[in-house]
C-alpha cells in the first residue's frame, strides 16, 4: 500500500505569514493613537524573529528526515492503520493538539526542552513576527517521542506531521495584541490572542500557564489555565531578558548556560542531571529562582494578590511567601 501524501502546509503558508504581518503593522499604526495597547513593532526585534523563522524552516527541510525516519520506523511495526478519512484527520488533529499541550508543558518545565523553546519567548514584543521566532534545536530535544503514541495507534506519520503543521499555522494569528477578546464561546474552547498573551507574559502570575496550541480546554482540564486580567497587562519577554538581537545567541544562549552548569566542577551526578532536566531556575544551592519562587516573592510583595488567578497557593509549590516577607521590600516595586 502506498503512503498517503499531505502538503507541507507551513511552507505553503509563508506568503500568508508575511502578508498578515504587514496588515497587522498597518493596523497598529492606525489604532495606536486611540489604544496604546494595540501592539508595537521594533525593527531589529522583528528582523531577529523573521531570521529565526526562516532558519527554522530551512532546518526543518534539512533535519526533517530524523523525525520522519523515527515515525516511519514506528509505522512499520504498528499493526494498526486508521486511514486518512475526514474522521481520522479530525481525530488526529485533536489528539495531536493534546500531544502539543504536553510537549509545550514539558518545554517550560524541563530545562533540556526549555533550552530549545526559550527563544520563542525571548522577544519583549508580542506581535505576529514573534510567532515566527521558532526554535532551531527542537530536533535535539527528542520530543518527537511524544508523537509515537499517535503513530502506534494507527495514524500515518504523514498525517501526524500534517496535523502538526496545521496546529502551527493556527497558532500564528494568536500572537497579537490587535485582537482583544474573541466571542465568549470561542474563548471558552479555543486558544485565542488573550489566552496566548498570558502564556507569553513574564508577570509572575502568568508564568507556566496556557500551554495550549489550538484548544484551550487542555489547560482547563489539567489545571494550567490562567485568564488575562485587565489590571495586570502581560509584559512580554523572559524573566531575564537577553541583551542581544544576534540570532545565534538567541538560539543557543540557554544551551550554553545549561552545559556550563552541567559541567561546572564540584557537583554530584544527580546535581548535573538536575541542571539539565529540572525546571528552569533550579540550582543546586538554591541561589536561583524558579517560577514558584518568583510567584512566592511577588505574593510577599503583594499580599493582596494571594489567591487571585495565577497566584493560588498550589501555584507556589512548596514555597511559602512568608519565607521572603522580611527580605522583599514593598517600596522597591514600581507603580503599577
Amino acid at each position, binding site marked *: 500500500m502506498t503512503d498517503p501524501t499531505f502538503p507541507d502546509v507551513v511552507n505553503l503558508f*509563508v506568503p500568508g505569514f508575511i502578508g498578515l504581518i504587514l496588515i497587522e503593522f498597518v493596523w497598529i499604526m492606525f489604532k495606536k493613537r486611540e489604544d496604546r495597547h494595540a501592539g508595537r513593532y*521594533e525593527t531589529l526585534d522583528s528582523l531577529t524573529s523573521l531570521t529565526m523563522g526562516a532558519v527554522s*524552516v530551512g532546518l526543518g527541510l534539512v533535519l526533517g528526515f530524523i523525525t520522519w525516519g523515527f515515525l516511519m520506523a514506528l509505522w512499520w511495526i504498528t499493526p494498526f492503520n486508521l486511514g486518512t478519512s475526514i474522521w481520522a484527520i479530525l481525530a488526529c488533529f485533536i489528539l495531536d493538539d493534546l500531544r502539543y499541550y504536553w510537549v509545550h508543558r514539558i518545554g517550560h518545565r524541563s530545562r533540556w526542552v526549555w533550552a530549545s523553546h526559550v527563544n520563542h519567548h525571548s522577544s519583549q514584543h508580542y506581535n505576529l513576527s514573534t510567532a515566527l521566532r521558532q526554535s532551531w534545536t527542537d530536533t535535539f530535544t527528542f520530543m518527537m517521542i511524544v508523537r509515537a503514541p499517535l503513530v502506534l495507534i494507527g495514524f500515518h506519520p504523514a498525517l501526524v506531521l500534517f496535523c502538526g503543521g496545521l496546529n502551527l499555522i493556527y497558532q500564528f494569528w494568536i500572537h497579537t495584541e490587535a485582537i482583544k477578546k474573541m466571542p465568549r464561546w470561542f474563548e471558552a474552547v479555543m486558544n485565542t490572542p488573550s489566552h496566548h498573551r498570558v502564556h507569553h507574559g513574564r508577570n509572575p502570575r502568568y508564568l507556566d500557564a496556557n500551554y495550549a496550541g489550538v484548544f484551550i480546554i487542555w489547560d482547563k482540564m489539567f489545571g494550567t489555565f490562567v485568564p488575562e486580567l485587565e489590571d495586570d497587562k502581560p509584559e512580554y519577554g523572559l524573566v531575564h531578558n537577553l541583551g542581544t538581537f544576534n540570532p545565534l545567541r538567541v538560539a543557543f*544562549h540557554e544551551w550554553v548556560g545549561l552545559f556550563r552548569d552541567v559541567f561546572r566542577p564540584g557537583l554530584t551526578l544527580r546535581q548535573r542531571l538536575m541542571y539539565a532536566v529540572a525546571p528552569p531556575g533550579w540550582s543546586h544551592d538554591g541561589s536561583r529562582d524558579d517560577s514558584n519562587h518568583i510567584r512566592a516573592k511577588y505574593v510577599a*510583595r503583594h499580599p493582596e494578590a494571594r489567591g487571585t488567578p495565577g497566584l493560588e497557593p498550589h501555584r507556589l509549590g512548596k514555597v511559602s511567601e512568608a519565607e521572603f516577607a522580611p527580605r522583599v521590600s514593598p517600596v*522597591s516595586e514600581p507603580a503599577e
Partner: protein
Amino acid sequence: MPLEILLIVVAAGMIGITLMLHLAGQTRAFEIADEETARGEWLRHFPDDEIHEVTLAPGNNAALIRTAQGPGLLWSLGADTVAYHMAHPSARACRKGLRVEIGDFAAPAVTLRLPPEERIRWAARIEGTTP
C-alpha cells in the same frame, strides 16, 4: 512550493518588512531620560532589588545601578531596555565611547555613548563594581 520560490518569498518578505518598519520609525532606541525612568526600568527587570544609586550615561542609553544585591548596568536595546548584574565586567574605549563586556553569553557587549572626558571615569566605575 518549489524551494527556489520559497527562498525568494522569504528573502523578499524579510527585506520588505524590515524596510517598512525602519521607514516607519520603529528603529528608535529607548531613551533612559532620567533617574526615575532608570529606576523603573531596573525594577521591571529585578523587582526584588533595592536601588542605592543611579548614574545616567550622558547619551541617555545606559545607566549604572548600584543595588543592595550588587552593581548592574541598564541599557537600551532597541525600543526596550535590558538589565544585568555585573560580576566581572571589563570596559575599553571605542570610537563611540566605551565598550563594556559583561561576560554573559546572552548579553555579550554594550557600547555606551560617552564623550572622551567621561570614558576613563566610567571605565573605572564599571571595573570597580566587582561585588
